[in-house]
């Protein structure tokens, strides 16, 4: 065999969500602390391919990224009849917890980006004890809308083109062209109305203002990292959110935008490496019975 084979392996797991079995596609690599990665709205888990293939991280973490139903290789459930797709906070939370349960993950770390970052805050509010640590990328309790989502799904505008063109501005100018193109390709491939439906959670159903104050970071550490070029979830949005949460750790990432893990993987690695290192250290200390 002469071809280079990447280390991650993709499989399907059957997960019951809202009483119905869903066939969820996930990829994984590594062994150790389970690290579940959540993709952004309207895209899929390919965004995490660099992290999944990271040899150093894989030594201590079982890195897992799954496609949400209706995204990537996770098809809509059998009962779907074409009705408008709308992601709710309750359904999103249930999906993540059910996925972790189906794989029997022991106190996983969950890292989510954008809507994944928002739902991480919801996990911290309602289910902190189930997780070892939570990492929100481009996360805030709320952010001001900057376009009308009805443009994302209408017959007289190409959905893939407009979704990609809208989010193209959220990528930092310093990001390599190939990574930029790959990030946008995910948006060009999304199903009709799916990006818009994900944003229902973001814009309508997932407003966490006035709720993040209840997060207890002693139960579960919370790390928030936001790119300086993200004008959707701005550094100010993240800092404002963190200011209301005692013990929340904030990092503003230079030369990165809304898709740090896919738009500029090397630059993102500089920021996520110390976070994963700290989680590993805390995990080892608590295993040895040391108070941290």
């Amino acid at each position, binding site marked *: 065999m002469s071809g280079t084979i990447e280390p991650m392996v993709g499989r399907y797991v059957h997960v019951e969500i809202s009483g119905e079995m869903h066939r969820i596609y996930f990829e994984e690599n590594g062994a150790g602390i389970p690290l579940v990665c959540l993709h952004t709205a309207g895209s899929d888990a390919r965004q995490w391919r660099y992290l999944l293939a990271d040899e150093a991280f894989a030594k201590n973490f079982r890195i897992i990224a799954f496609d949400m139903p209706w995204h990537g290789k996770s098809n809509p459930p059998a009962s779907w009849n074409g009705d408008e797709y709308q992601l709710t906070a309750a359904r999103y939370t249930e999906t993540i917890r059910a996925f972790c349960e189906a794989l029997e993950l022991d106190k996983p770390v969950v890292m989510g980006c954008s809507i994944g970052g928002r739902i991480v805050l919801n996990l911290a509010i309602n289910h902190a004890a189930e997780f070892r640590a939570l990492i929100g990328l481009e996360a805030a309790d709320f952010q001001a809308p900057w*376009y009308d989502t009805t443009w994302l799904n209408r017959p007289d505008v190409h959905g893939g083109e*407009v979704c990609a063109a809208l989010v193209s501005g959220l990528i*930092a*100018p310093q990001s390599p062209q190939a990574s930029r193109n790959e990030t946008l390709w995910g948006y060009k491939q999304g199903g009709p109305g799916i990006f818009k439906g994900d944003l229902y959670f973001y814009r309508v159903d997932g407003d966490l203002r006035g709720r993040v104050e209840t997060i207890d970071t002693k139960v579960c550490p919370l790390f928030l990292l936001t790119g*300086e070029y993200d*004008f959707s979830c*701005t550094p100010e949005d993240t800092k404002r959110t963190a200011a209301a949460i005692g013990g929340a750790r904030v990092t503003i990432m230079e030369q990165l935008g809304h898709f740090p893990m896919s738009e500029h993987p090397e630059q993102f690695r500089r920021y996520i490496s110390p976070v994963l290192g700290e989680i590993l250290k805390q995990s080892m200390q608590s295993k040895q019975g040391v108070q941290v």
Partner: protein
Amino acid sequence: MSSISNVTDATIIERFAGIPALLEQAPALIVRGRFLDCECLLGPTAHPFHVSIRAGRIVDLTPAPVLMRSWRFSYRASPAAWAAYWQPEPRPGWHDLLALTKRGEAVLEGDLHPFMAHLQYFKDVLSLPRQHFAMTLS
């Protein structure tokens, strides 16, 4: 950023007027706009241009006002916003047409369909001066 703040409105207007020639040197971008025919109003807030686009080419660019000339949509931004947008590495929040509208440095008005249906085309056309703008400042 003193070099940007010193940029005159005349410089921005001059650079804007050069966009059609830059577009002619970008055949892939013209191809991307091949289904677009549109009258629009683009440029600095106080000194915009009526722009006529046919099959992705800018066939006319005339300073406003023109008596009773119609347009479908307009995108106008402050001269400071254009100067910042055209930097080789624009600052955060000044690097995208919709970042500029969000921060209140630009205004998008009218029938937005042609703009949204060709959003990447307009982003790329209006960033064409970026490749030459730094030289203007130096």
